[in-house]
C-alpha cells in the first residue's frame, strides 16, 4: 500500500448525499480480475451519456476539476455495496482523499486498506470547502500527520482519525503482514476453540 502523508491538490465539489458505490463504480466494471484500470469506470453514469460521450456538466469533466486529487462530497458517502472497486477507481483516477460529513462503514474501512484517506469534517466546514471549490479557488492541503485540512483561503480544519489506522496509512503498512506476526495467538485461539466447539472442526 502506498503511504499517505500530505497532499496539496485541487478539490472537486460533489454536493449530493448518499453517493453509493454503485454510482462510484457501476457493476459492468466489477467483472475485472485486476485492481488497476478502473479510472474509466469512476462515476461512469455521471460522466458519460449512453453513447459514451462525456457529459460536460459533471464536475469531474470540467477543465477546472479534471485533475482533482480531493473530492468533497455530501453525507453518507460510499453507502451500499462492499465493492473495493470504489476506492480502487477513485485512486486510479487520481483522487487520494475524500472529504465528507460522514461515510458508510464498509467504504470507510476499504479506503484504509488502499491508502485513500477519508476525512470527516463538520457540516459547515464541508460547506465552506464546497463553496470555495465551486468558486474555482480550489487547492486544498490535507496533512494526515497533523490531522488538518487547509481550505483554499487558508482556514484550517482539524479532523479525528483512529490512531492505529493513521499509523498504518502514514507508513503504508500491509495489514496481513502485521497480523501474521501474531500467528501464534491465532494458533492458540484455534487450539482452544477446537476443544470448546469441536463440531466446528471437520474431519
Amino acid at each position, binding site marked *: 500500500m502506498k503511504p499517505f502523508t500530505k497532499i496539496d491538490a485541487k478539490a472537486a465539489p460533489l454536493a449530493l448525499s448518499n453517493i453509493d458505490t454503485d454510482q462510484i463504480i457501476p457493476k459492468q466494471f466489477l467483472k475485472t*480480475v*485486476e485492481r488497476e484500470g478502473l479510472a474509466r469506470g469512476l462515476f461512469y453514469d455521471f460522466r458519460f451519456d449512453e453513447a459514451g460521450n462525456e457529459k460536460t456538466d459533471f464536475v469531474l469533466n470540467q477543465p477546472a476539476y479534471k485533475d482533482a486529487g480531493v473530492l468533497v462530497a455530501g453525507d453518507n458517502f460510499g453507502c451500499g455495496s462492499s465493492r473495493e472497486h470504489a476506492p480502487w477507481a477513485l485512486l486510479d483516477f487520481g483522487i487520494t482523499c475524500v472529504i465528507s460529513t460522514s461515510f458508510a462503514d464498509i467504504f470507510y474501512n476499504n479506503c484504509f486498506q488502499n491508502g485513500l484517506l477519508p476525512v470527516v469534517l463538520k457540516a459547515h466546514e464541508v460547506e465552506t470547502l464546497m463553496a470555495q471549490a465551486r468558486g474555482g479557488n480550489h487547492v486544498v492541503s490535507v496533512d494526515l500527520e497533523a490531522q488538518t485540512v487547509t481550505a483554499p483561503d487558508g482556514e484550517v480544519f482539524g479532523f479525528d482519525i483512529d490512531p492505529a489506522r493513521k499509523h498504518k496509512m502514514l507508513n503504508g503498512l500491509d495489514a496481513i503482514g502485521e*497480523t501474521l506476526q501474531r500467528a501464534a495467538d491465532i494458533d492458540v485461539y484455534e487450539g482452544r476453540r477446537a476443544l470448546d466447539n469441536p463440531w466446528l472442526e471437520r474431519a
Partner: protein
Amino acid sequence: MAAKTLYDKIWDAHLVAEQDGETIIYIDLHLIHEVTTPQAFAGLRANGRPVRRPDRTLAVADHNVPTEGQALGAGAVADEEARLQLLTLERNVADNGIEYFPMGDLRNGIVHVVGPEQGRTQPGMTIVCGDSHTSTHGAFGALAQGIGTSEVEHVLATQTLRQAKSKNMRVTIDGTPAPGVGAKDFALAVIGAIGTAGGTGHVIEYAGEAVAALSMEGRMTLCNLTIEAGARAGLVAPDETTFDYMRGRPAAPKGGAWDMALAHWKSFFTDEGAVFDSEIVINAADIAPLVTWGTSPEDVMPITGLVPDPASFATPDKRASAARALDYMGLIAGQPISEAKVDRVFIGSCTNSRIEDLRAAAAVVQKAFLEGRLVAPHVTAMVVPGSGLVKAQAEDEGLDAIFKAAGFDWREPGCSMCLGMNPDRLAPGERCASTSNRNFEGRQGRGGRTHLLSPAMAAAAAIAGHLADVRDFI
C-alpha cells in the same frame, strides 16, 4: 459481571489479540463468490501466502451467473468477462482445496441463501463475505459482516479480521402486524425511520414480539436490509425457531455434537439490564405495506401515500437529492404512488428469494388467477429462486406452476436482476417493482427505475400492472 449484549458476547468469544490499538477477531466462516475474490487470491499468490482454513471457507457462483442454461457450466457463459471471473474462481478454489458449489449444482445459489440452507451459518459465529448483505446471517445470532476484497485476502491468509468494536443499537418491534405486512415492511420502516446512515458505526439487534414471531426467512430479510440502514450487522438472538431451522441441515452438528452445540448457542442472548448506545421502538401495527419512491432505500412511503415534495426536506443537500431522485424516477410530487405503472417485476435477490418469499408471492398470484387475472399484458415478470434447492422445493410445492400459469418467467438461481451483472437487467426508463434491496440509480440497469417492496406486493404489482396495495389482493 456486567450485563452484556448479544453483540458483546459474540465479540468477546472471538478475541484473538490486540495489536496497535486494533482488535484481531477470529472468523468462523468465510463465504466467497466470484466477483470480490479474484484480486484477493492474486494477492495471496503474489506474496506466497496459503489459505489458512480452507475448511472454514465456502464458495458459490452467484453474482454473474446467467439464470438459464446453468447446467452447461461456467465455460458456456456467453459474457466473456463473467466467464473469466467464474473460471478464475473455479481455479482458485481448486488450488486451495475450498468447498465450492459450481453453477448448475443444486446446492448453488445466492451466497446468503446457501450458507443458512446448508447449515454452515450457525448461532454465535463470526461470518464474513465480500458482500455487504452478509448482514443476512445475523438472523441466526451470528455476527455477520460484509468486507472488501483486501479484507477477504486478510481472512483467507489469517482467518481473522482487524477491527474496532462497533456500538450497540437495539430496534424493538412490538405488536402484531396487519395482514399483508411482513419482514420486508419492517425493514423498510426501520430504514425510513433512521435513514440510510442511521445505523453507521453500530450493530443492530432486533428484538420484540413481532421479531420473535418471524420465521427464519423473515428474520433473514430483516437482517439483510440492516446494511441499508448503515449498520454493518444485524442480529436476532437464536431461539427455538432458529434451532428448528438448523436441525438436520447438511453441515449442522449431529448426535452428541448437536446437544453440545445447542447448549453453546443458547448462551447467545442479551442479558437483562444490558445497556445499548441507542434504542428504537416501533409498533408493528403502525406499519403499512411500504414501497420506495426514490433512489435511496430510506425513500420509503406507504403504498397509500402521495409522492413527497422535494421542498419538504430539511437540508439543501436532501432537497437536491430528492429532486434528482424524482426526476430520475419519472415521478411527480403529489401523485399517488399507486398510480406508477410498472414495466417489470422482479421477485428474487438475497433479500426475498427463499421458499417463504415465493410462497407469499404465489399465494397472491394464485388468488388472482382463480379470479381470472394474469400478469398485466404490458408487464414482464420474473421469479428467480435464491438457490437450486429453493427452486426444487418450490417446484415440489407446485409454486412454479402457479407463477408460470399467470405469466411469470421462472428462472434458475442467482443474483440476477438485483444488480444486473448478468443479462437480466432493466432498459433505460423501465420501471420495476422489485423485492431486492437497492433502488440506487442504475442498480438494475442503466436508467432503470426500481421500487423496493415485499414479495406479496411485487406479485400484486405484476397483476395490477402498477404499484398496488397487497391488501386488495388477499
